[in-house]
């Protein structure tokens, strides 16, 4: 009995019970679709986070004022951290040879206006170094010029969206905009960049850091992004930068994290999340397997006469086993294929609704979901198929 004959026989038998076959097939399909869609969701979240970090390069140390751990001491003494200043940034550049660039940043929100049009956007105070350190690029005009950090020139670079909203159909370069109470000349527009460190880089106005500090009335940097020359020196550079600042402040009152550490933490959390989602979805596959087993048991008891007949015609036990097992596996693998298609559609729909989430099922999940569905048919089909082969031909013929 060739494989083709086995499959042919099983297919004919399944077609005899379209509704029942369809229902158990649907059970598997839902399970597989759930695995595909949920792992795509988890994977999408992971990629989103990785993308956020990768978009600003991987050999960065990010320093922010304040210590994340609880500090003790007398009330009224210490507590409030010292400012993280441009002077600190320069000291780090001088004292830590592993670091080749520093991008001091302050952030706030301001109203940007041009003529009648006004818009609330994120205000970023930056320096020329931000272009390289934060992997930005300019669509038209130019970025902030390399200049003394302390010089607060009235220059502005707009994000794509901000430029589009304020200057519909026009090139803003060379125009004067009002940012808060300040009049500034637009010198460039950023290329589209998407989200970066939680900020939509398309909806920003970037001004020189000294200007921004004056506008926002702040003396401390929001953060200092340090670019390390080689990835291998990342951890050492971080420690040395912290020490330089600690010496200047006479206490360690800054927090510096490396890209890798944060990324690693997020990746493992979201990897676990994806696995958990896959596990939950697999439960529904197991349930579908029980459904198949039930359908096959009904099928075997309905067809006892036929099984008796097959034995009388000279069908060997392995052949009967194969025929019934093939039915179960056909149901489950057809359901698996249907589920893959449904899962794919669900993921596409998700991406349409949330374009920012790069949802896509990981290859391992797709392969695992499909092979699991086939395995479910094989495992849960064994019991009914064995029951079929064990029937005594005489009793089976009598329908007992």
């Amino acid at each position: 009995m060739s494989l083709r004959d086995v499959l042919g026989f099983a297919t004919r038998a399944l077609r005899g019970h379209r509704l029942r076959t369809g229902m158990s097939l649907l059970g598997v399909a839902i399970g597989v679709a759930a695995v595909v869609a949920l792992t795509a969701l988890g994977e999408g979240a992971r990629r989103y986070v990785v993308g956020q970090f990768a978009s600003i390069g991987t050999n960065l140390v990010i320093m922010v004022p304040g210590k994340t751990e609880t500090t003790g001491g007398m009330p009224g003494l210490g507590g409030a951290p010292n400012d993280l200043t441009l002077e600190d940034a320069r000291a780090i550049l001088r004292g830590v040879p592993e670091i080749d660039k520093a991008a001091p940043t302050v952030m706030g929100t301001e109203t940007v206006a041009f003529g009648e049009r006004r818009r609330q956007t994120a205000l970023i105070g930056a320096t020329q170094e931000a272009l390289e350190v934060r992997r930005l690029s300019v669509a038209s005009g130019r970025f902030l010029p390399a200049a003394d950090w302390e010089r607060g020139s009235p220059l502005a670079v707009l994000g794509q969206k901000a430029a589009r909203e304020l200057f519909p159909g026009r090139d803003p370069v060379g125009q004067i905009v009002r940012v808060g109470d300040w009049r500034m000349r637009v010198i460039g527009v950023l290329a589209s960049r998407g989200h970066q460190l939680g900020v939509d880089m398309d909806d920003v106005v970037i001004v020189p850091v000294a200007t921004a500090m004056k506008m926002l009335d702040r003396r401390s940097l929001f953060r200092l992004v340090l670019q390390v020359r080689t990835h291998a020196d990342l951890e050492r550079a971080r420690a040395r930068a912290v020490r330089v600042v600690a010496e200047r402040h006479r206490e360690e009152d800054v927090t510096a994290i490396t890209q890798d550490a944060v990324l690693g933490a997020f990746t493992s959390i979201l990897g676990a999340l994806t696995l958990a989602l896959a596990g939950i979805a697999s439960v529904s596959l197991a349930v579908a397997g029980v459904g198949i087993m039930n359908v096959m048991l009904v099928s075997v008891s309905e067809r006892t006469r036929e099984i008796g007949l097959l034995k009388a015609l000279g069908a060997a036990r392995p052949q009967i086993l194969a025929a019934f097992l093939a039915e179960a596996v056909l149901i489950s693998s057809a359901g698996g294929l249907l589920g893959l298609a449904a899962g794919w559609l669900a993921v596409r729909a998700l991406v349409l609704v949330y374009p920012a989430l790069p949802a896509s099922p990981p290859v391992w999940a797709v392969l695992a979901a499909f092979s699991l569905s086939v395995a479910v048919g094989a495992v849960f089909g064994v019991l009914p198929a064995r029951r079929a082969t064990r029937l005594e031909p005489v009793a089976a013929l009598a329908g007992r």
Partner: protein
Amino acid sequence: MIRLQGICRTFEVGGEPVHALVDVEETVAAGEHLAIMGPSGSGKSTLLHILGCLDRPDRGIYELLGRDVARLDEAELTLVRRHTIGFVFQFFHLVPRLTALENVELPMVFAGVPAGERRERALGRLRTVGLEARATHRPDQLSGGERQRAAIARATVLEPKLLLADEPTGNLDTASGRHVLEILERMNAAGLTLVVVTHDPAVARRAQRVLVLKDGRVVHRGDGAHIHEAVALLASAEDGR
């Protein structure tokens, strides 16, 4: 062809043993046409099942073509059922979702005959039972007589040596019953050993030999021409109840 020696078969029914066959001795020559008669519960179907290797005797020796069948394992029995024995049932037992042709092909599927050859041989068989024109009909589109003829074609497609028929005309009207018997007798004339279990004296009369069973024992042996003795015996058996 067949030699039965001291065949016993006992079933448990409701905790009590029922002696379906007791010390049955019989020899059937190749090419013979034997009828087995008996009231219901006399063990005639059990005997047929044992002859067809669908059931095993508890005691005794069943020699088929010189082999002690009772000692064969399941895989060897399968081969005997497939190649040596054909079975025809009262209720036809055609697979309802398969056409007449596909039903006839079924034994060859299990025997591993290639698909092309299968079709050819099945069509040839359907021709010999006069059902070629109905090859693509499913069982529910065939009359009772046609179904039984398809079942005969299926039982004989692998050229068995022994054809066992359990009430082959039991569910048919007289005309199609006669047609079915003619086909069986034609095959018997061509050398196929034929064993028919029947209630019907008209069917038994056509056999060369008649065996009458009662309570699991052979109570009468005779040739078909003297069937009236057997019938009288059966009648008295029925009266005796």
